[in-house]
Every structure is written in structure tokens, then in C-alpha cells.
């Protein structure tokens, strides 16, 4: 069934991945430099989409130039750009492969860059994420002889401390993933006072909802529920307690549908871009081949 046929049959005219990408892209508006790590096709698309949107919004202005600690400042001293040349104020860096990868100093550069405060946003998944935003990328069961081993912690134990806007993503919203307490802390959601920590979790995007994280009380707060889903469904499938929006009672806002022009942008420009890094994902979601 084509997307148009699905739409007329009352089904959404987009894939769940496309929906999550659009939700995540909105969280990146106004930022200067977004980085994307390993095994992250959905965040990669979201970052590229946000870049494309930022370029459309600010075409012809000065380009971004993220200096130390001012990645999110308004682009002072950026290079002047020739009249009519397209610019994207949002800078995106994707490690792994050469496409959209600005790093020339080896695997360590993204971490050094983050440590200097030059990266405004990063994405982390989690085989498990708990109510305190601790994430587990390593495995389930008692360490070290795990019941189920996942790839490993990657750079999470550093990026979570250094990047101010970490967006957590969990396409599968279930009690298997969103647990009361992670079995292994790859990276902690919060740190005690006295620890230098400019970075940390800001939001959690799942297949069912959008939550924000409040480090002061170490809890998630539900922000919106994706169309077709309910608060009850979210409670049933979440292993931890979370707060509701202030003054909302039991009525929680609905996450907006993908903007049609952004869906179009995603399926054309962004699909052609992400296929260079994630050919399998691009083929599956966008039917796009390199």
C-alpha cells in the first residue's frame, strides 16, 4: 500500500521513524553545532533536517562558526559568505565515514571538541533508560557475565557530561527499555555537586511521547503524547514514575504531526544525504539507494 493509500485508509502518511525524526529536529532549533554518534540513523536524519530547515530560514546570512563555549551563541565572527550562496546556520557533524564529517584529527577529535564546549547537542540511545536518566548501552543482567550483551558504552560516559543538550531516544517505548533502574550505568543522568558537568540529558523522544528531563529533581516530565496514543498507554509501558506538565491535570498535549514540507525535505534532500552514512536505513525507510 502506498503512503497516499495508507493516508486515505486513515493510517498515518508517514513512517514511525519519520515522525520521531521530525520531533527530534524541532528540539534542535536555534542551536549552533549538533553532533551525531555511532548507530544513530534517526538522530542523523533529525540533525540534517534541522540543518536544512535552518538554512531555509536564514539563507544568505552569516555562516555558523562555533568557537569554544559559544557554540550556541549567535555566530559571532563567522565567515562572511558570498551573496546568494546557501548557508546553513546549524552545523552538523556525523562521525563514521566521510560524509558530513568535518573532523580531521582522528577519532579523538569529537570528544576533544565536546570537552571544549563546541558541541551543543548530541544523541544517546539506550538498551535501558531509567527514571533518573541513567543509560545502559552495555547489557542486561549482572555484570560482567551478562544475560544479554549489547555493543558497549561507546563515548556516552564522556559526551553525557560535556554536551549541554543530550537528547535520549528510544523508538521502542516499553518496560523492557524504560526501566525503574538500569542494570549497568554506562553514563549517569546526574552527578553530585562539585563534579564539573556542563552536559546532560534534556529530552527523551520515544515511539509514544516526548519527555523533558529536570536535573534538579532527577525526574522526567511528560511533554506531549504522539497522535494515536494515550497517557494510560504511556504509564502502562513505562517502568518509572514521571511528572505531568504543570497544570495539565490528566490532559496532556498531543505531539504535533510532521510538517508536510519537512516530510518532503526529509524524503528528498535528507534521504539522499543519510544514505551515505546509513544505506540500510535509507533503503528501508525512504526506499533510497546510494
Amino acid at each position: 500500500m502506498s503512503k497516499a493509500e495508507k493516508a486515505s485508509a486513515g493510517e498515518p502518511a508517514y513512517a514511525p521513524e519519520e515522525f520521531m525524526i521530525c520531533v527530534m529536529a524541532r528540539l534542535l532549533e536555534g542551536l549552533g553545532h549538533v553532533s551525531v554518534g555511532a548507530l544513530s540513523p534517526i538522530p542523523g536524519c533529525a540533525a540534517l533536517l534541522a540543518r536544512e530547515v535552518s538554512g531555509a530560514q536564514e539563507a544568505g546570512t552569516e555562516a555558523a562558526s562555533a568557537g569554544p563555549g559559544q557554540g550556541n551563541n549567535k555566530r559571532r565572527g563567522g565567515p562572511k559568505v558570498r551573496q546568494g550562496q546557501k548557508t546553513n546556520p546549524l552545523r552538523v557533524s556525523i562521525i563514521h565515514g566521510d560524509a558530513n564529517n568535518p573532523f580531521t584529527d582522528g577519532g579523538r577529535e569529537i570528544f576533544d571538541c565536546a570537552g571544549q564546549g563546541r558541541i551543543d547537542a548530541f544523541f544517546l540511545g539506550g538498551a535501558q533508560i531509567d527514571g533518573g536518566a541513567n543509560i545502559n548501552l552495555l547489557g542486561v543482567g549482572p555484570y560482567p557475565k551478562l544475560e544479554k550483551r549489547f555493543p558497549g558504552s561507546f563515548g556516552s560516559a564522556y559526551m553525557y557530561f560535556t554536551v549541554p543538550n543530550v537528547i535520549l531516544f528510544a523508538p521502542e517505548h516499553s518496560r523492557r527499555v524504560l526501566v525503574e533502574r538500569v542494570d549497568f550505568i554506562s553514563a549517569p543522568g546526574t552527578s553530585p555537586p562539585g563534579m564539573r558537568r556542563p552536559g546532560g540529558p534534556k529530552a527523551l523522544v520515544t515511539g509514544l511521547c516526548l519527555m523533558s528531563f529536570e536535573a534538579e529533581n532527577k525526574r522526567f516530565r511528560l511533554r506531549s503524547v504522539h497522535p494515536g496514543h494515550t497517557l494510560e498507554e504511556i504509564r502502562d509501558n513505562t517502568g518509572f514514575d514521571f511528572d505531568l506538565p504543570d497544570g495539565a491535570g490528566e490532559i496532556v498535549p498531543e505531539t504535533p504531526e510532521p510538517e508536510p514540507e519537512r516530510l518532503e525535505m526529509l524524503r528528498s534532500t535528507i534521504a539522499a544525504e543519510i544514505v551515505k552514512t546509513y544505506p540500510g536505513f535509507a533503503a528501508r525507510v525512504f526506499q533510497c539507494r546510494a
Partner: protein
Amino acid sequence: MTSMEDLESLAARVPDGALLALAPEYSWVPMALIRALIRRRVKDLHLLTVPIGGLAADLLIGSGAVKTLESAAVSLGEAGPAPRFSEAVEGGALDMRDSTCPAIHTALQASEKGVDFMPLGGLVGSDLVDNRGDWKVVDDPLGRGGGPVVLLPAIKPDVAVFHSSRADTQGNVWIGRRRELVTMSHAAAATLVTVEAVEDRDFLDDEATAAGTLSGLYVTAIAVAIGGARPLGLTGHYERDGDHIRAYAEEAKTGDGFKRYLDREVFAETGAETGAETGAETGAETGAGS
């Protein structure tokens, strides 16, 4: 001087029990050399992935060559989990030293500088730290206000290995922007490189090539292996063979399947990838990835 030899003698330079450093899949993995190591039944390796591993690590682990693994993650990327790695960890067959990407880069940088340890921010509160008896958390010794910091002992690989498109007759090797290969080689006691070709020139005579060159000062021995990174990719020469990796991910889910893969792709290879002349004549560019 750098020694020019064939693939099998390069493999003979990796002793059993060596601390072997291996870069990630996007960074020119010497797959032909890895297969030669498996054919010579190397054992008790202490494998270090810089900082993450993929097919090469999975092959070495599955063939019983690895005793200790230090890694931030092992995965086959879009093809999914690394099956032999997962099973080995779940079965307790590996002495696992779980790490995080910047910790591996930093510990190699300590060796580059010839110091015994280096500090790294972040990390504190991750269960990785508690499970690493060789890491130490100390209070900021200079009182700069950063709070606790983790000290990482220098990692000094016995051998670093990688593949490149070209070396010159002086033993210099082209690394382009893949500078983790430089860090790894600086830190290692010996560096072994396979190349597509050896050029009769000196890369250091030309500023454009010098900037992307690992000096022969660090290169112990070089062997020609045409298609030596296949089925993984080599920037500007050939792409990663996604179909091969996906088929491997499926076949190697069982021990029997893995053995079939080894018999077919590793042990059945005769002289096809063991020398420059043979390789050129038999069109071994397809390597084991065909």
C-alpha cells in the same frame, strides 16, 4: 628502516599474547592480515579496539584468538550485533575490559607522550569506572575547581595494524585524515601496515602528501595486500560490502555457521592475498569479500 615483506611474514610478527591495536571499520582495517593471523592460529591476544570494533574483532574472538578484550563497543553497524562477541561475553569466555571511546584515545595519547597516565573528565558515576581496577578517581590535584577526575594508565600496544591505499619506498604510509591510525602507531611498539601499492617516491617531499602521512619512523613492516581491507571499505578505493557483512551477521549467529564462514572465507584462501604479484595476477582485488 621499514621492512618490505609479504603478508604471511607480517602475520608472523604478531606474537601470541600480543596487545594488538585495531581501528574501527571506517578506518581502514587490515582484513587480509586479520585472516592471515587466524590462519596462523594466533592465540591469547589482548585485543584493543581504537575505540570500537566490528567484523575483525568478531572474527578474532570467534576463532578463539582473543583472551582479553579492551573496547568501548563491538558491533557490525547497520548489520546488527557482533554475534561471536556477544556469545563470548555472555558465556564468560572473554576477560572483558569495558571502556569508553575517549578513555581509549586518551590512554594511547599518554603513551604517545611517554607518560604513565592521563586524566580525563566526565566518566565519574559510570559503572565502567567501578569495574576498572586499573583506573583511579582522584580529587582535582591542582584545585582548579573541576571536581574529581579519572586517571587512566597509558596503553602501549605491542603491535598496531592497519591497511592503506599506499606506502612509499621510504616506508612512509598514507593515512589521510584517519589520524587515529597515527595516535595508535605512535603509541605502539611496532606498527604493521598492509597497502594496495608501494610507490617509488617520498611522500615527505610534497607538502600535500606529507600532511596525511604516517612517517616511516613508526612503521615496522609493510606488505602489499590488494583489496586488503575487503569486505570493509577503503576511502576512495572501494566501499564496504554491506551484503557480505549482513550475510556474516546471520551466518555467524551459530558456532557451526561461523565455522562454515571461516572455512570458506579464511582457510580456503590460498595464495590469493598473500603477495603482491600473486594478487595482481589473479585479480585478488575481490579478496575475501566476493
